[in-house]
């Protein structure tokens, strides 16, 4: 399902006129089955942008196309369920949405709202709890007895269980330990390989470099740049303005560049970096 923004502006109805603008004239395409990362400072409009995709927010002007569905300022609040089933969204700190008395029921909550029969929903819960790296024993426990990281996994399972075509992740790994973060990021990559479109908001540039195919940079409610991570991380203007920072491998390469190494473009992943170093030491 391709997603397209056409001149989308969103202003929040706000008591404070200064903080009103959420999104200013954003146009872009998000490719089907791709892994797209959105980066930008806090308050730059990332969350506002993605909330338009499942019509939690509607544009003040402009339109959004999600598959054959068009969202305009006039879009009615009714009949949004098919759209929200197709576009799953994992919020920042998703554990605060858990409410059922067992993990199983909580995972089944989304699918049942979208009209998936009880039995299928239960099957999905049993499948997804394993996908997010927990055993089936957890299904009978109360979600409130779990640790923060486990709650996060249950919440993610709850979104995956509705089998959305597009999965939006708003800072899904904030506050997780490094191992947990890697497991969860790998899980999203796996979902992409299963044919899903992934849209990830993150502040972690290494995750962007390692997982994303396209990168969007937001700044002051505007979309400032779109491209492959490789191109964006090599864009000196964006770096100078501090709109993005570099992944660790690129920082390391910059230091090497001061010591007789030469990089045509900065390597952004460990693999690229080691390949370059090997080649420059042994290659010539």
């Amino acid at each position, binding site marked *: 399902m391709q997603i397209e923004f056409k001149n989308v502006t969103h202003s929040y109805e706000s*008591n404070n006129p200064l903080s009103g603008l959420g999104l200013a004239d954003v146009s872009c395409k998000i490719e089907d089955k791709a892994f797209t990362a959105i980066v930008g400072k806090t308050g730059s409009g990332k969350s506002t942008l993605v909330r338009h995709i499942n019509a*939690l927010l509607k544009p003040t002007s402009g339109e959004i196309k999600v598959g054959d569905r068009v969202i305009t300022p006039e879009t009615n609040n009714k009949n949004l369920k098919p759209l929200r*089933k197709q576009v799953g969204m994992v*919020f920042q700190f998703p554990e*605060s*949405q858990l*409410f059922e008395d067992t993990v199983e029921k909580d995972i089944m909550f989304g699918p049942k*709202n979208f009209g998936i029969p009880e039995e299928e929903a239960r099957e999905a819960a049993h499948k997804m709890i394993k996908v997010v790296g927990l055993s089936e024993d957890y299904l009978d426990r109360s979600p409130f007895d779990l640790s923060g990281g486990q709650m996060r996994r249950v919440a993610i399972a709850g979104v995956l269980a509705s089998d959305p075509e597009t999965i939006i992740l708003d800072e899904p790994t904030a506050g997780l330990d490094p191992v947990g973060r890697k497991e969860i990021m790998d899980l999203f990559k796996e979902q992409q390989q299963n044919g899903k479109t992934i849209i990830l908001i993150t502040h972690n540039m290494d995750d962007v470099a390692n997982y994303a195919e396209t990168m969007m940079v937001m700044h002051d409610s505007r979309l400032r740049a779109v491209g492959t991570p490789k191109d964006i991380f090599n864009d000196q203007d964006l770096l100078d303005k501090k709109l993005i920072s570099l992944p660790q491998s690129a920082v390391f390469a910059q230091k090497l560049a001061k010591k007789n190494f030469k990089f045509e473009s900065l390597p952004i992943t460990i693999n690229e970096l080691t390949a370059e170093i090997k080649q420059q030491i042994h290659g010539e």
Partner: protein
Amino acid sequence: MNKLILGRYLPGDSLIYRLDPRGKFLITFYFIGIVFLANNLVSYAFLLLFVFFAVYISKVSISFFIKGLRPMLWLILFTVMLQAFFTPSNHPIWHWAFLSLSKEGLVIAGYIFIRFILIIFISTLLTLTTTPIEISDSIESILKPLRVIKFPVSQVALMLSIALRFVPLLIDETIKIMDAQRARGVDFGEGGLIKRIKSFVPILIPLFVSSFSIAYDLAIAMESRGYKDGEGRTKYRILHWSKRDNITVVVMIAITVVLLFLRSYK
């Protein structure tokens, strides 16, 4: 939900902002009291004039006050309609079954309407120009005499200011949780009554859970910074009663006198 104006503070600066909050607080209640003294067109007009003057010198845009009316609109309309259609009269202009419309009824409905405007505007003025902390400080200061009968004034004031502090936080939290559940396919405000009530469970439970955890964290944070309740706590914000506060009191007395005079005006 965040459209609720009544009860929100709007940062700004003007004479009204600088008044002593204790005075503002008491004067607001006093004014609400004397609104009920008005009994004819001139006296209502006089009070309206005063309120609009106060709004004017507060330098807060009138649109905030009009927005503040919005959540009360149905209550106001309902009360005004009730007065208009159910005031008994010997000379109805129009009537049908038990409903009748008369000149007296319309006049009373009009007065009720003005009364609502006066009360809502003046209380909105108080909350827009006074921070919640200032309000709870003034309540503490006003309740101080109750210490004599062992009433825990400072604890109550602390509870109040914490509660006020958490209102915007809880509103934000509610919006966040509602969005998350919407994304999981909940339709708020659709379907029958039972379905609607049921759709609030997925909001209320997470809201309770997070309120408790916020409260728990706050208690630990306060204790680790040495909070101890009871006597002997000093104040960081000291309230000052100054000349301009005296002037507002004089103005209120003058208004009362004029109002009493206008009451008998025919």
